[in-house]
């Protein structure tokens, strides 16, 4: 069959219908699905924090509570063949991309059954077969990589899009600016999703920049920008869909700023005397998961019983994942020296 047309690389374009979704089923993007995914993120984080407090395992952990709407909305908007590049605060993105809880927990526990055989750790979860291409522990550093995946998405002729997530703190890095400029210049199908929780590590946004509207940086390079209240789950839901659709159909980048507030510490085990109590309390009022639950019930979309049964199933899934990781065999010592190079001939290994 003759190709539909050729792209700028002279390669055949692949028609929308011929793009295979990686053999996995896509969840229908409904408010119920959004809530379910948000709740899975929230509940798994609760399970992780409980296990950390109990000393069941040790690992650095960067909570995502308060960011669930955008994570979950991305999960529903993307196809399995689309790409994500995440940051160390990655739990929501990893779950959203469909990585099973058991693999996530095994990675956190340092088990061979983990996403990276237990060698990556909580900040470096990756599952390319799910489209989770890389997760970086360096602030802002995933953005240039996402731009490159955008270039590959143009080249391969499919209709892939790339989403990369980062915090507001990344906006002060050079990699941030270099990536936005390049993506705009080359019109790359990348959604730059800024999870603006108002804090860069332990410094307030007002103390590290005079321009707290992060999206202005993207406007400066003429990129389409969308700014949304990150605690308003349904607004985030439609903003993410708009951004992903734009990147997919227009083959052009979008900067999406989801404005939230930090609901939990920067990292597990750190204290937060720096967060004013009144601001924290106001933010907790907006905690998206319980609010979304109320919305579903009050609007009549789901009954109390239906929501309870969703929640109970998730708690069982979380419990199972943690038990699985606890009893899984640790990564054997022989894995220390594998995966350093493709082949080890002549290597000082």
């Amino acid at each position: 069959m003759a190709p539909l047309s050729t792209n700028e690389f002279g390669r055949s374009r692949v028609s929308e219908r011929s793009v295979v979704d990686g053999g996995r089923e896509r969840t229908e993007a409904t408010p119920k699905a959004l809530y379910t995914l948000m709740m899975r993120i929230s509940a798994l984080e609760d399970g992780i924090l409980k296990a950390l407090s109990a000393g069941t395992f040790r690992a650095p952990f960067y909570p995502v509570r308060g960011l669930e709407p955008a994570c979950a909305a991305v999960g529903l908007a993307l196809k399995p063949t689309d790409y994500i590049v995440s940051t160390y605060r990655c739990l929501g993105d990893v779950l959203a991309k469909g990585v099973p809880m058991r693999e996530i927990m095994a990675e956190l526990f340092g088990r061979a059954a983990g996403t990276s055989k237990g060698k990556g750790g909580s900040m470096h979860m990756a599952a390319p077969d799910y489209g989770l291409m890389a997760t970086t522990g360096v602030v802002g550093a995933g953005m240039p990589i996402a731009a490159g995946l955008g270039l590959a998405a143009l080249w391969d002729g499919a209709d892939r899009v790339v989403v990369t997530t980062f915090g507001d703190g990344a906006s002060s890095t050079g990699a941030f600016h270099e990536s936005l400029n390049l993506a705009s210049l080359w019109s790359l199908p990348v959604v730059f999703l800024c999870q603006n929780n108002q804090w860069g590590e332990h410094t307030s946004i007002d103390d590290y920049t005079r321009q707290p509207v992060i999206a202005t940086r993207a406007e400066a390079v003429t990129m389409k920008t969308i700014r949304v209240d990150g605690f308003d789950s349904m607004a985030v839901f439609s903003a993410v869909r708009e951004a992903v659709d734009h990147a997919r159909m227009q083959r052009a980048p979008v900067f999406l700023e989801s404005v939230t507030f930090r609901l939990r510490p920067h990292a597990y085990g750190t204290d937060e005397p720096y967060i004013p109590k009144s601001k924290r309390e106001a933010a907790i009022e907006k905690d998206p998961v319980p609010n979304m639950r109320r919305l579903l019930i009050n609007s009549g979309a789901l009954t109390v019983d239906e929501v309870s049964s969703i929640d109970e199933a998730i708690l069982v899934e979380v419990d199972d994942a943690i038990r699985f990781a606890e009893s899984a065999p640790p990564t054997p010592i022989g894995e220390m020296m594998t995966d350093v190079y493709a082949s080890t001939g002549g290597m000082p290994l």
Partner: protein
Amino acid sequence: MNTMADPTLAGAALASVPGETMSFSQAYRDALAFALESDPSVVLLGEDIADPAGGVTKLLRGLSTRFGVQRVRSTPISEQAIVGAAIGASLGGMRPVAEIMLMDFLGVCLDQLANHAAKLRYMTGGRSHVPITIRTMVGGGGSNGAQHSQSLESWLTNVPGMKVVCPSNPLDGKGLLLSSIFDDDPCIIMEMSRVIFHPQKMVVPRGDYRVPLGVAEVRRAGTDVTIVSWGRTLNDALIAADELAELSVSAEVIDLRSLVPLDIQTVLTSAAKTTRVLVVHAGVQFAGFGAEIASQVTENLFDTLSCPVRRLGAPYAPTPAGPLEASYVPTASTITSAALGLK
């Protein structure tokens, strides 16, 4: 995930393949053209690389005209974005060849190289790989001063996950570049300006010609002293070997060609024979890569050696501009003197 180029031609016997006399630039351009022509996943990224500039040294002249600006992409002056985009494109199935104009500029993108390119395979438990090639020019000899003249291989060799390659002549230039491009690991290939602009020409095979990474070459056989080097100082070592021959000292000259992977066996075999070893490089001697060679030779052959392994590199100072620079990097005469000092 990524497709390998047809490897059946790798290591094609030199004599049986039609060749052409080429300078380093010609051989290099020939390699890039072959890669672009034979593998649609190859894309070139870098500042000024498209025509009419064709790269800061004109090394890539004509390639964008022949293969299009989509595949020979000039970039903004954004080294982090260049290396990061190469990494991302490779994760998405491409085989990018990115240029960092000068090795000194690794200083602004080392995070992408050392923390991402080098580590993604390991951090993903082998689920990802990053088959990128970073081409970078090493200056020196042009009075360009401390920020455009450095040979910084020792910044890289201490980071597991990268391969570090350094050709000294046109033939190896083509063969090592093609091996790097079609290698599944991130490779950094150091293009020394004194090698790029060296008057030497060689018969270089047309088409696919590869020099395997991690195989040193004995460029000159000898019996009294082993001189180990790479890149620009290798050519000075060959001149020194001529000078030494006139003084009845037989020097064996080994071109490492890649530092990672390291062919230490070829060095040890030679050292066991000559019992005297001199390591020469353009980078700073203190904590330079020569120390690794010296250490490995000593650990393996302490009882065999006639004298301690000697290193000869740049002094522990930034590269000076002006006439002082001539005394900074080892030369044929300082190499000869150092070799004569091995008793």
